[in-house]
């Protein structure tokens, strides 16, 4: 149907009842219909990664999925990273290592790295770099992002 359909999206543990056209991407829906504007849209063709969210724990490009495909799945966005106002180790590491400048790509990097570190906190530097090459940043030159993710991985391991 091109008509709008009613779906329920679960974002950061909260249910959002939304009415969307099938063509509406998950990225647009998260931003416009769920009002979670921390997820950014940088290219809408799956290259830049600014729109990366976690779908059932795995990082995906939310611009390359339709919202109707995400019903019943657990979606996590940057708004869900800090628990009770306390920044996650990764968020804190981004501050400490100056891993962001304009901050536009940052939510995508945070979700990418969160998904990967949750799965494999022992990830090696080369593999980590390769994973981080999934997303584009025009400001930082990446070095401080890599440093921040490594530092967060160490913190997360120490806290286990």
């Amino acid at each position, binding site marked *: 149907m091109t008509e709008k359909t009613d779906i329920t999206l679960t974002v950061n543990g909260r249910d959002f009842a939304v009415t969307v056209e099938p063509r509406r991407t998950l990225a647009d829906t998260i931003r416009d219909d769920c009002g979670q504007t921390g997820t950014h849209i940088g290219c809408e063709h*799956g290259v830049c990664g600014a729109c990366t969210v976690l779908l059932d724990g*795995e990082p995906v490009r939310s611009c390359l999925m339709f919202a109707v495909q995400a019903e019943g799945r657990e979606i996590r966005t940057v708004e869900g990273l800090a628990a009770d106002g306390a920044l996650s180790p990764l968020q804190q590491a981004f501050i400490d290592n100056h891993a962001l400048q304009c901050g536009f790509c940052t939510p995508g990097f945070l979700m*990418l790295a969160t998904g990967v570190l949750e799965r494999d906190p022992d990830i090696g530097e080369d593999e980590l770099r390769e994973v981080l090459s*999934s997303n584009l940043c025009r400001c930082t030159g990446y070095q401080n992002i890599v440093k921040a993710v490594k530092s967060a991985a160490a913190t997360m391991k120490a806290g286990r």
Partner: protein
Amino acid sequence: MKPAPFQYHAPKTVADAVALLAAHAGDDGRILAGGQSLVPTMAFRLARPAHLIDINNVEGLDCIAEAGGRLCIGATVRHAAFHKPVTAGPLGALLSAVVRHIAHYPIRQRGTFCGSLAHADPASEWCCVAAALDAELVARSARGERVIQAAAFFDGAMTTTLAEDELLAEARLPLLPEGTKFGFQEFSRRAGDFAIAMALVAFRVEGGRIADARIGIGGAEPAARRIAKAEAALDGAAPGKDAFAAAADAAAAAMDPMEDVNTSAGYRRDLVRTLVRRALEDAAAA
């Protein structure tokens, strides 16, 4: 860049999926699997399918199974499924080695093996694998089922011999015999980018001689294919520098490479030579 409107269908069974495809194929109905190639083209409105038949909820398409000496990969099996070997033999290791070259980690969480084959991008790693290993491709339609050999499946850039009402339901790869050595090399300008060229090689060594050589080249020509002349340069030869160089030269000579603004045909040909040789060296060293 928002996609044009379309009607969305989410069948639960293969029968429903192919029935929907039969009903809408003539009206630009398309299968939506991982969507990692289709959705960007829709965002640019280069593709404007009137109907999308989403197969992600179709039962049974997400399975990987071994049967009859083959690994059967369902239509919704994602690239990420191959990050760890899916089978204990050489094929599992080969697929794991190849998969990390496919785009980027988040893309691999959604994109599918069969979707890659049906999309038939010249730079697709899975197309190269399918061609090199002589995959059998199972097409399902309301009319029935047929099995297409990889060599007869790829029909130029972004083109296959699937009929418009056919769903690529499964790909079957041979479980390579124990002792099969393989090597995969690709070159792209930046990690995760579309490959300029790639080479997948596999062979066994019997009594000091190469047997069952396979050399598949992707990215350089409009469609991936096995290069018989290069394989012939290996079969029966002693593994080593001379045989590898001869095979690499033969592969390069067999190319009719594509050209683009950044990449000359001559460069692609040179690259094929280098990548075949390096892949063979990797295989021998493994």
